[in-house]
């Protein structure tokens, strides 16, 4: 009887230790340049990959002469995937990389209301007249930069199996439209295709 109790105690202690180890919280920093995917869906590694694939050829595109710095306005990338993806992150990163390349100038469309508000304030008499922003001096865009993010998802058909496979294809179509003529002067596409599998049965 005593031996049974000792054995029971050992088993319980081991089980408790195992449970406690599993419950310990941990945090660690990840390298943003390293690809990390938990499943087949879109994540931050994809954003960087897509942006790099699109920006590099755009910077050296012969459509825009080197001596000119065309002025672009960015319109949000339309999300036509089946996931809630913040495409604002994609447009922000594309814009940032293009500004850093020194080849393009950008109009801050998202700050238009605030610019107007600030200009209105300056003309209310609080600001030194010599320091007032001159109205009617804003830049006009030469081109519109826009894009569409799409996805095609395929799951393995329902059948007897231990793992469920899923394939997802993403594409981001980027285009630059000449505002004067309406002509699409530049278009490019970045694609990502991924397969992921996860066990159907768990503990």
């Amino acid at each position, binding site marked *: 009887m005593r031996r049974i109790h000792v054995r029971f105690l050992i088993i319980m202690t081991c089980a408790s230790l195992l449970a406690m180890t599993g419950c310990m919280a941990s945090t660690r920093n990840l390298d943003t340049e390293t690809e990390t995917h938990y499943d087949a869906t879109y994540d931050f590694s994809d954003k960087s990959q897509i942006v790099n694939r699109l920006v590099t050829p755009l910077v050296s595109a012969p459509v825009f002469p080197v001596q000119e710095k065309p002025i672009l306005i960015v319109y949000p990338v*339309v*999300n*036509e995937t*089946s*996931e*809630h993806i913040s495409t604002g992150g994609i447009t922000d990163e594309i814009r940032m990389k293009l500004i850093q390349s020194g080849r393009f100038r950008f109009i801050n469309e998202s700050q238009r209301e605030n610019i107007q508000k600030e200009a209105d304030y300056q003309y209310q008499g609080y600001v030194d007249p010599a320091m007032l922003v001159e109205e009617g001096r804003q830049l006009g865009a030469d081109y519109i930069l826009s894009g569409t993010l799409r996805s095609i*998802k395929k*799951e393995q058909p329902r059948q007897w199996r231990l793992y*469920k496979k899923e394939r997802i294809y993403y594409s981001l179509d980027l285009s630059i439209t000449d505002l004067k003529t309406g002509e699409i002067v530049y278009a490019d596409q970045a694609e990502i295709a991924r397969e992921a599998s996860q066990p*159907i049965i768990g503990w």
Partner: protein
Amino acid sequence: MVNLKAIFPVFILLTIGCSSLPLQKARTAFYSGDLATADNTLEGCKGISEKDLLLCYMEDGLVLHYMGAYEESTKVLLKASRLIKRQEQISISEQSASVLINDRVKTYRGEYSERLWVHTYLMINFLLQYNYESALVEGKQALEVYDKYPESLAGDHFTRALIALCFENMNLPDDARIEYEKLAEEMGIGIITPEPIIPGKGELILFIGQGRVPTKVSSNVVLPPFIRISIPRYSYSSSAMTVTVRSDGVDLDPMKISTDLGEVARKSLEDRSVQYLIRQGLRAGVKEAIAEEVGETNATAELFARAILFLLEEADTRSWETLPGTLTITRIVLDSGVHDLEISSEDLQTAYLDGIYIPQGRRVYRSLRF
């Protein structure tokens, strides 16, 4: 040892069902018209056990929707949607427990139809917030559910029409046409083409919920010597309810597409019946083996064990109960300007939308519940 065997099922019996108390209270408050109490009772689903968490998110999401808190409702229903995806894995421990006790010990994963309706209400919420992009994301997720369970969900015309509308809003007419073609085929009618919004006109789109979805009850069969088989079924059959619309005193005949949610839910449950019956058979066998083993040492204990196992056999009657019985999408093309509308349900209740402004070339959305 016999005592332990007897105490264990009693303990399980006592623990089952306690966590669903706030859900019941919230449902009662919801149907008595006290939506704020219903929402407060659920307290953001903090005290709800993991096995009923999906139900709680679904109920709370709907309560918040009909309170007009569309943003909050969206947040809660998105949690439900994420949870459904996480629950795709089959748990060995839960399956084993359900074979020994009953299906109520399993985490509630939602009927196929309920999984679809999470996306349906998310689509409605996003449309009411004029977030067309996110509405289409939900539309596409709903299409994935349709593709997974085509036969069970073919009767949900409302959701299909909603998906088509989401494609229209994103200026994707070809995708919308495909959905209208599928819808026409499922409804057994000719081509469905929504009335175009011509210059000088706008469109009012109403999402109308009527009645309440049937709840699940258990059907019991008792076999000798002491075997009880308990199967869930929907409590009563229903039929889609009609709705009439008057604008500025004039009867209108707008495009209306309805779904009888009870019928779709029933079909979903039926399509799951094979796996249900297999588990029932397995459980009956396991329980009989336990009772016989107990009986080998003590006849009284066997009787007691059989009684406990008999009582433990309980059908899983959990379901999303705040859903309406019928959902109807009504698309009304109106002259641009201010209108007074009168919407009457089949059970003679009337809702008034006074002074509703329809801008030119735009769509306006409202959600109603009778």
